[in-house]
């Protein structure tokens, strides 16, 4: 009896080993190593040894505009993409929620961007936005010049549009599932109770799908801060650093400038920012957001 229990426990531990090993090798070790690299200042020329500077590199890098400007751009990018992505996805889900003839076609079209990748989306929009041959330039009747992606004011919003578009399929599917989970009888009760369509939506549907909205917000913020592909393919951080978001800055610092120390400091900062945001959002969820299983 006893030996069997011991065997079970041993087996249980044994079975967690692969997952634990993967975690240590691919998550924990790189994280520690990154923090550690942040303590070493890299010499300006390759081949020279880097030397230990402790936390001083953290304070210099994090207060420098080479970190703060990309951080600002990333924040702006998240503010551009997350609320709009959720709102448009929800709007499409509401539109497609009705039982109409041919509605399935719309559902397929609305979800279709989930089958694209960042690269595909970027290529599509790069072509559309091309200042000389693009459809967009033709529409606004203005050929040549820098185009939207070369315009300091519009470059970041334009990249944001690409991101929103590319994530729309996911957002739509998520919101459709949430809408489907709202019990029909509650909406019927609200209708009989005299609630208009708007009141039913904002007082019944929205509170009931709020867990999904917050989930989408968390995932969206994290994805937004990790944006890289669109930037690399569309603007390479330009014009003049206006689309240089945090991850792209880390990338150029690390691979182009080979400044592992500075890049590591910024990577650690990004990690901490995301952890912090997630914690804040979870605490909001616990206090404010209604979970349907409380029913």
């Amino acid at each position: 009896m006893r030996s069997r229990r011991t065997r079970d426990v041993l087996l249980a531990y044994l079975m967690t080993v692969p997952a634990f090993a993967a975690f240590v090798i691919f998550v924990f070790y790189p994280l520690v190593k990154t923090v550690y690299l942040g303590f070493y200042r890299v010499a300006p020329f390759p081949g020279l040894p880097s030397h230990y500077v402790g936390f001083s590199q953290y304070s210099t890098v994090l207060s420098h505009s080479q970190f703060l400007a990309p951080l600002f751009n990333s924040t702006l990018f998240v503010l551009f993409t997350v609320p709009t992505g959720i709102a448009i996805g929800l709007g499409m889900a509401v539109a497609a929620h009705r039982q109409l003839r041919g509605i399935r076609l719309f559902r397929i079209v609305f979800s279709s961007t989930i089958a694209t990748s960042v690269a595909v989306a970027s290529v599509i929009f790069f072509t559309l936005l091309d200042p000389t041959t693009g459809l967009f330039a033709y529409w606004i009747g203005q050929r040549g010049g820098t185009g939207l992606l070369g315009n300091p004011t519009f470059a970041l919003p334009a990249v944001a549009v690409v991101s929103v578009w590319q994530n729309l399929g996911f957002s739509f599917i998520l919101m459709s599932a949430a809408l489907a989970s709202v019990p029909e009888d509650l909406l019927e009760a609200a209708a009989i109770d005299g609630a208009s369509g708007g009141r039913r939506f904002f007082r019944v549907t929205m509170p009931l799908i709020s867990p999904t909205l917050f989930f989408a917000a968390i995932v969206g913020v994290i994805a937004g801060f990790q944006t890289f592909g669109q930037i690399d393919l569309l603007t390479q951080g330009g014009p003049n650093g206006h689309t240089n978001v945090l991850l792209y800055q880390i990338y150029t610092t690390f691979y182009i400038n080979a400044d592992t120390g500075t890049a590591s400091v910024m990577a650690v900062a990004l990690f901490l920012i995301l952890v912090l945001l997630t914690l804040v959002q979870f605490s909001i969820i616990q206090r404010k957001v209604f979970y349907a299983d409380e029913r």
Partner: protein
Amino acid sequence: MTPAAVRLESVTKRYASTLALSSLTLTAEPGEFLVLLGPSGCGKSTALRVIAGLERPTSGSVRIGDRIVDDVEPKDRDVAMVFQSYALYPHLSVRRNIEFPLRSRHIAASERDRRVTDAARSLQLEQLLDRKPAQLSGGQRQRVALARAIVREPKAFLMDEPLSNLDARLRVEMRAELIELHRRTGTTVLYVTHDQVEAMTMGDRIAILNEGVLQQVGTPKDVYGRPANVFVAGFIGSPPMNLFPGELVGEDGVTIGVRPEDFTLGGAAGPVKLAAQVSLVESLGHEHHVACRVAAPSLSSEPLVLVRLPASVSPPSLGEGVTLAASGPVFRFDSESGVNLELAGKTGAAAGDGSGFR
């Protein structure tokens, strides 16, 4: 709000393959407690949903008060509905749930508070106003659903099996409360149930539906004492009426119906006399149920007849041969159409005469 009549006028509701309501014409008089009774799937909920405007009838129309509401949205029909599932808003407190219809109608805060307080008091919810529905028992949720309906002071209440999720004791309690509530508010009530005891005890009149077709409307006394057809006869009464082929008593082409309490063992003479053998005896304390197998050489199977005996009579023993004699009313139904032959000659047999409104 003065209570209004609610009228369905030859309403038919067809879903893809099922006919949920078949040309249903039915009126709940102002202030009446009308029960819709029938087996599962007979279209009771559909009837209520059509009245509330949640379903559009395939044909026919609905009238509330003196207004035809076919093109009126649910929110403007001014009826309140209590759902079988209660449909409480899980994210709102009990107070907010009860207030919801008042806020929807932009009732002033002072008036709103007064009505919520009244409703909460009359349903003993005062202590629970700050709780969420998840923190309530089934009976309490049911009362919140009722409170949310009565604060409205609507033209009519639609109740879809509101007691079916409660345990037996609570159900009896709530039944009394509902009757009391109806007496106090005087509002028209359409009450759906498949429980005939509820129907008999609560309804001013009962409308019996089967497969979307109205079988009979009448007072509880009517439908019990003068069932329009075999279906009503078999559905009303517990245990149900014994129905057997007329051949057993020498009457061809009819189905004979005798209620279990209207049989005696042996003794008195009457039109119906059957030789039978006791096959089961159940003693319930206040009465005995005796199942007897009737000797029927002319039939392929021997029908089973249930007899209800008062506790004062000592029940027969198993296997004993007995003579069943009808001591009460004997019903005769056409074995083809099922119509009660006694009422068939008179007018309006199938739908009752509606005069039973008390």
